[in-house]
């Protein structure tokens, strides 16, 4: 495989898609690397913060993307198309697996035990905040959780979220409102961490 002369960032998704369709495996790898982390975040939260499951779903998402790439029409952006596949795959996964949950109350006094990603630069307060947010997110209904992650972690616009979830923009706004109010209701007892 010839090494690309231009940097990855300079190549558009459309060019990489075309190259992938014509059999350039390296082009697909670039698409994968471009979207891997953001898609993983979305899946991770939908599958109840279970890293191994999220990695399995991530794998099947990209296999599905590759197999269906020739069906991708440029009417949607590649990004929202991949997000849509990821949301569907993660939801399908959840339907097949019952994941145990820990209640928020049970971790109220044990804020440090949760976070395998905690790093030295995080303050104790940040770690506590992250702990309760992780749990609260897991307790949100799936549709609320998905929309909150798409908006605040993936930073998608209302229009993009509407495209990913096949909803009207107005429905996205109202669902997001309800999700945020529910999140706040669950975390009310931890307001001192804000």
């Amino acid at each position, binding site marked *: 495989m010839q090494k690309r002369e231009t940097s990855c960032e300079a190549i558009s998704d459309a060019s990489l898609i075309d190259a992938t369709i014509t059999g350039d495996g390296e082009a697909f790898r670039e698409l994968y690397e471009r979207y891997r982390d953001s898609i*993983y975040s979305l899946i991770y939260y939908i599958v109840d913060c279970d890293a191994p499951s999220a990695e399995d779903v991530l794998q099947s998402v990209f296999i599905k993307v590759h197999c269906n790439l020739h069906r991708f029409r440029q009417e949607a952006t590649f990004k929202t198309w991949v997000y849509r596949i990821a949301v569907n795959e993660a939801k399908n996964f959840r339907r097949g697996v019952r994941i145990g949950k820990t209640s928020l109350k049970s971790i109220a006094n044990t804020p440090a035990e949760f976070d395998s990603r905690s790093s030295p630069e995080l303050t104790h307060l940040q770690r506590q905040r992250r702990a309760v947010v992780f749990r609260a997110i897991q307790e949100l209904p799936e549709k609320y959780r998905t929309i909150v992650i798409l908006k605040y972690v993936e930073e998608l616009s209302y229009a993009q979220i509407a495209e990913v979830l096949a909803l009207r923009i107005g429905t996205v706004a109202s669902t997001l409102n309800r999700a945020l109010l529910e999140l706040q209701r669950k975390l009310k007892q931890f307001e001192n961490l804000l």
Partner: protein
Amino acid sequence: MKCFRVDLWGKLSDYENGVLSESDARELEAHFLRCSDCKERLANLRKGQTWAKSIPPVKPQREIWKNIEAALNASPVRRSAAPYMSAAAALLCAFFLLYLLWNRNERDFAGGVKEMRFEEVTIAKIPHSSAPHIVTEGFVSEVHFDPKEGDTLFRLVENPAQPEPFVICEIVQPYQLKPPPVGSRVRVFGVSRFDSKEDHLWFEVHPVLKIQSVHQ
């Protein structure tokens, strides 16, 4: 007092994000002056946003590209066809499915598996091998079907009298191979991976790409 101006609730996040039209924003602000319920709703929404903004993005802890690449190389649709080829591809897929139904044991995915290079490794040495594609040999000690996932798993051991060392072999869709019978000796071709789920923590051949019977 409980407010029933549902029409205004939907505008709160637009107001908060500064994208509400000036006239709507003025109407909302006038409403806030006389409605403590909506003022509290806005305050809660702001707190909810603050919480939501503190959700951190996460990154995968292991690199899975090799698994994806291996699965794509083994797949019958290994390279996406050009759009004008889709009808031909559908026809080919139909023939391919018929072929699979008739050759369930000796499936090699139209040569995909034959083209791959599988590192020969004993079950005990799998943890020390970094090869993505392996072939290993052993006795089938258990076979399970997972109805939720639709996958079939079997446990391969070096010595049928001893439970370890072992490797779990997973037959997944679309590679629906016929599982070997318990007690048989087989050679299993597939992708080597480690299952790090808390209650698993074992090495796997996942997906299994080919199974060969070994006549003893």
